[in-house]
């Protein structure tokens, strides 16, 4: 089977980000999507801590210790960007002003439930951050994740086993094997990478997949 690398997955999501979009990229793999958005598109990145127009990492001598993104990395501000407080930042998220949010996930259900903030492991203290607000608020929520766990267990399930971040919120899933839309009829494969077949991807998915239209 063809399995995309992390970079290839990010590149694939980047293709679907339209010119002029307001986008929030989650911590981790989703953050790297920005690296692959082509230069002819102008995309405005939002960071939950209060930035619109997030730019690339600064040169080492240009670091502003306060100017970080949600992943606590140093960033810069593009011309045309702005700063605001938490209430306004989350108003943007919850109020449906962001066109696209890209988040990682532990599990996604057949009806678009998202589980990405807690496992059932109670040893560690829980942490949720802004994930639940992004999940309910963005106009379109894309999930970017490996199709299965490291031990080859399915992450796309009839029902999530882990605690939900939001119910019925995911619009599209980008994995290393395929692109899958969450539709009213169920999960519909939108794209299979390389020679991957529906049967092969279905075998690694614990919810029924509909063939591409």
């Amino acid at each position, binding site marked *: 089977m063809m399995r995309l690398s992390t970079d290839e997955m990010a590149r694939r999501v980047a293709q679907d980000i339209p*010119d*002029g979009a*307001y986008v929030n990229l989650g911590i981790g793999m989703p953050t790297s999507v920005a690296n692959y958005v082509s230069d002819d598109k*102008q995309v*405005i990145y*939002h960071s939950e801590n209060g930035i*619109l*127009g997030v730019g690339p990492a600064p040169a080492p001598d240009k670091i502003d210790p306060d100017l970080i993104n949600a992943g606590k990395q140093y960033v810069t*501000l593009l*011309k*045309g*960007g*702005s*700063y*605001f407080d938490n*209430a*306004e930042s*989350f*108003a*943007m*998220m*919850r*109020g*449906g*002003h*962001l066109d696209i949010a890209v988040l990682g996930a532990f599990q996604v259900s057949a009806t678009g439930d998202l589980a990405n903030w807690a496992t059932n492991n109670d040893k560690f203290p829980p942490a949720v951050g802004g994930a639940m607000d992004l999940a*309910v*608020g963005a106009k379109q929520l894309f999930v970017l994740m490996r199709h299965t766990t490291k031990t080859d267990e399915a992450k796309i399930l009839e029902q999530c086993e882990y605690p939900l971040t939001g119910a019925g919120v995911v619009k599209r899933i980008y994995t290393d094997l395929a692109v899958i839309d969450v539709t009213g009829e169920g999960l519909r494969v939108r794209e299979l990478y390389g020679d991957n077949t529906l049967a092969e991807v279905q075998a690694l998915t614990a919810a029924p997949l509909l063939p591409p239209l």
Partner: protein
Amino acid sequence: MINKICESLRAAVADIEDGSVVMIGGFGNSGIPMQLIEALRLHGARELTIISNNAGTAEDGIASLLRDRLVRKMVCSFPRSSGSIWFERLYEEGEIELELVPQGTLGERIRAAGAGLGGVYTPTGYGTRLADGKETKVINGKGYVLETAMPADVALIKADRADAWGNLVYNTAGRNFNPIMATAARITIAEVKTIVRVGDLDPECVVTPGIFVDRVVAQEVQKHDAA
């Protein structure tokens, strides 16, 4: 490239439909998008619901929409002012519906819509007739009224300067309802005095980030401005 600048006032309001819910910024005569209102009047959409703090005075602004009988309902905190003759006339004739909302509640309902909240519990109006028929709740011994989010189809707002990304700054007390209305409508249209280059507005001083703004249109120079 992101360019929200609209070439004319007329084009900016061309898709406002009959029956729309339209927020209009301003307080008294401060921070009112007068030229967008005039463009809306000439556009002629009817059966409008107007959400605005006041209802216009003389023949100006919202009063001109009332005079042309384009408005079905006003949502206001203070529709009656000295000179609000058109509102008073239509109200007396039973030709206009009024939803009276305390000013701070009006603001919170607008903000709630922009911030994706379903509603807020406010102490304002508790125990008064403006809470009649509304859900109430006592929280930590204090009475509150449930006020639900109030979204709009269109917001017409007034700012001082804008850039092509839709970032806005205002002039003095001209902010009033404009920044919150910008967040609460499906389409937000800003009338501004000046359009500046992207990057010319200080990011620390932007009041309305461009994400909330769909169209920016520069005021046209009026003959009487030259007088």
